[in-house]
């Protein structure tokens, strides 16, 4: 693997993981400030431990039991769905049909929900704060695990991808600890657009190659091999820009008011 490829892999994984960790940080901060830091941080720590266990089990299972074609199909399909969900939101936001994601607004919603929730204590912890922190970190973390597996295996260098993701986690945690507020200055919408394109590209490449698992058992091959990734990326970029131009024109007349506030991340 060339030095450029290593940097490319590391940068792509870092950006994707960074965006996921920023969302997890917002949730943990909201719980910490409203429900107490002890429950929020223990929830986040428990999620990281569960995530490590999940990664070991899934990594071992994938490496030991699953043929490459099945691995490509399973991880590719998941990645393709994640990527297209992100790309869909990015297209709608760029077309002005959906409010831009605002980490401060997400933080506001989380804190409002936390303030109105009941005070249920279990194992000496505020249960709401613990569970919400745990779910937030675990859910975003599992997506990072799939990103690391896909980017890392595709480039033949999982350690670099894993190191990039861990670095992203440390940077976000440090920034959050210093700022003690959501990282709203991060250009999250632009990053999500870029990451959505990357995930959709790798997801398409792997899911289609993995179809061979259901027909003959061996992976299919794209004409042009790994170079096809660039063609697929260009295709998704072109399609997304086309949709950004077209969608506002086909929007029904009865909903042409201001964009609605975004209900979820």
């Amino acid at each position, binding site marked *: 693997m060339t030095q450029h490829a290593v940097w490319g892999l590391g940068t792509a994984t870092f950006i994707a993981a960074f965006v996921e960790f920023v969302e997890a940080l917002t949730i943990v901060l909201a719980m910490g400030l409203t429900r107490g830091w002890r429950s929020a941080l223990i929830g986040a720590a428990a999620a990281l431990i569960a995530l490590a266990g999940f990664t070991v089990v899934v990594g071992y299972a994938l490496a030991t039991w699953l043929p490459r074609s099945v691995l490509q199909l399973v991880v590719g*399909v*998941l990645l*393709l*769905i*994640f990527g*297209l*969900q992100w*790309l*869909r939101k990015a*297209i*709608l936001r760029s077309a002005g*049909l*959906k409010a831009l994601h605002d980490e401060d607004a997400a933080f506001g919603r989380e804190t409002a929900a936390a303030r109105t929730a009941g005070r249920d204590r279990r194992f000496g912890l505020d249960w709401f704060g613990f569970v919400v922190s745990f*779910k937030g970190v675990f*859910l975003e973390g*599992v997506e990072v695990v799939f990103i690391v597996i896909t980017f890392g295996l595709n480039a033949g260098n999982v350690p670099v991808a894993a190191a990039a993701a861990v670095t992203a986690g440390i940077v976000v945690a440090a920034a959050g600890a210093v700022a003690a507020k959501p990282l709203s200055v991060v250009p999250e919408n632009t990053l999500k657009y870029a990451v959505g394109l990357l995930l959709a590209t790798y997801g*398409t490449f792997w*899911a*289609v*190659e993995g*179809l*061979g698992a*259901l*027909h003959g058992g061996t992976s*299919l*091959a*794209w*004409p042009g091999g790994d170079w096809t990734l660039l063609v*697929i990326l260009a*295709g*998704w970029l072109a*399609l997304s820009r086309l*949709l950004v131009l077209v*969608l506002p024109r*086909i*929007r*029904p007349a*009865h*909903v*042409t008011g201001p*964009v*609605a506030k975004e209900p*979820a991340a």
Partner: protein
Amino acid sequence: MTVVRGVLRFLYDFVIGDDWKVAAAVVSALGIGLALLALGAPPAITVVLTGVAVAAAFTAAVLIDVRRTGS
């Protein structure tokens, strides 16, 4: 029962997300690819057509969404 429901809810949120049509588009497009293979289409052509089918199905899902709800 609450735990099972919670796990199912978690899996649905994780895999399907907030627009089930995107997941349906992906599965439909891959189904087309599988059908092409079963019909004996050459693998090199099948991968390209399946990739195009994924893009077409995604476009359809987004267009349906915008035409119905505006977002």
